């Protein structure tokens, strides 16, 4: 069975790679299988882990009995989960255009939850903590830092400040403000260059993984 499995995996892998030569039926077939399988995968996992595992088990908790037939472990049913299920079913109504407006309620719930949570999360973690980490003693509390660390701290403070100045588009980037923004864009270009380098590393890693499968797991030419 593993032989069949390896050949199926190799067939699908090479089918996708055939797109590099040109668009063809083999690629389209593999792509369609991917779309169907992905949707089905999520469908099944969410059924067992959420709809059954959270909602059904929460509302109808299983009862456990010991050898003597006595009830030993039974959680209290959580009937409030039914509200979540009702909202979920309302979401599905989007499939029927006539009653699709009903899905606005669960959508509003999701948007409201996310907005409320994000507002504070991003404010504290991505703004306040970052600002705090930028307002630092450049030379240490007692001038004890090495030249390496001092230069690094200066780069962090100047780079962050000038980067933020660059993103301030309500004022024209002229004069000293423009020069400051210029340093900011240089910092951001270094950031983008590093991100590009890491992106190349990431994409190549994915390819290396597949090559390892083809030549290693499938053909057995490498260990």
């Amino acid at each position, binding site marked *: 069975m593993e032989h069949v499995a390896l050949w199926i995996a190799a067939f699908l892998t090479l089918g996708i790679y055939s797109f590099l030569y040109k668009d063809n039926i083999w690629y389209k077939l593999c792509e369609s299988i991917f*779309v169907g399988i992905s949707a089905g995968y999520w469908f099944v996992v969410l059924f067992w882990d959420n709809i059954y595992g959270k909602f059904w088990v929460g509302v109808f908790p299983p009862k456990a009995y010991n050898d003597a037939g006595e009830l030993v472990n039974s959680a209290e049913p959580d009937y409030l989960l039914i509200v979540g299920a009702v909202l*979920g079913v309302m979401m599905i109504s989007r499939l029927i255009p006539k009653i699709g407006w009903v899905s606005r309620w669960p959508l509003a719930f999701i948007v409201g939850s996310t907005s409320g949570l994000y507002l504070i999360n991003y404010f504290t973690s991505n703004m306040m903590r970052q600002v705090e980490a930028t307002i630092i003693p450049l030379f240490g509390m007692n001038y004890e830092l090495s030249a390496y660390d001092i230069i690094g701290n200066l780069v962090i403070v100047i780079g962050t400040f000038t980067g933020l100045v660059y*993103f301030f588009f309500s004022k024209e980037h002229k004069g000293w403000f423009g020069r400051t923004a210029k340093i900011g864009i240089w910092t951001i270009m270094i*950031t983008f260059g590093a991100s590009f380098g890491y992106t190349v590393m990431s994409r190549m890693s994915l390819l290396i993984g597949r090559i390892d499968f083809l030549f290693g797991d499938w053909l057995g030419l490498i260990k």
Partner: protein
Amino acid sequence: MRREIPLIITGVVGVVFLLQYFIPHWPFDEMSGWFSDWFSIVQAFAIWLGALNLLKISAQKVIGKKSDWGFAVVIIVSFLIIVIVGLTGGEGYRETGTGFSWLYKYVYSSLSATMFSILAFFVASASYRAFRARNFEATLLLVSAFFVMLGRVPVGDNISFFLPDEYQLSQIANWIMTWPQTAGQRAIMIGIALGLVSTSLRIILGIERSYLGGGD
């Protein structure tokens, strides 16, 4: 009322999540707990909606015999195979050795990994054809990318073996990532956070209503 009730829901839920940071006690901790549970369930149904919508569109394509309807059949068949295998597998449906885990390992994993790995080829091709040092900023980007790409693989140190230890390419790459790159990322992160805070506030207060869509 079709637009007013969703706005009220958004406002109430958003405020509860806001307040539970400041009052992490009854009733806000309990309410946010309920909402978190409901969110998990609603999100599951939202993804189900996507899957069912895909089925609906594919079925319409097959029934209407539109172009490439054969591939729509493949989509539906693939979907049904994994759903039937998964739903009939019981709670242990993904244990090693089950049909579902087989499909996951040899079909789903292979396809999804390969789909993303194809980007490696396009990155190389795009770099050859389009990546040009037209001005100082682009040159700065390129030079930074070179140092990071070389420094993040062992060959970087092999190339710069003649330099003192602290100036070898891996150390330069470390320096770039630790200091100037972090500064730039931090500026971007703070900018995004400010934008997100203002957008979230607008949504909770009902000023931003685009998520409700058009119509009545």
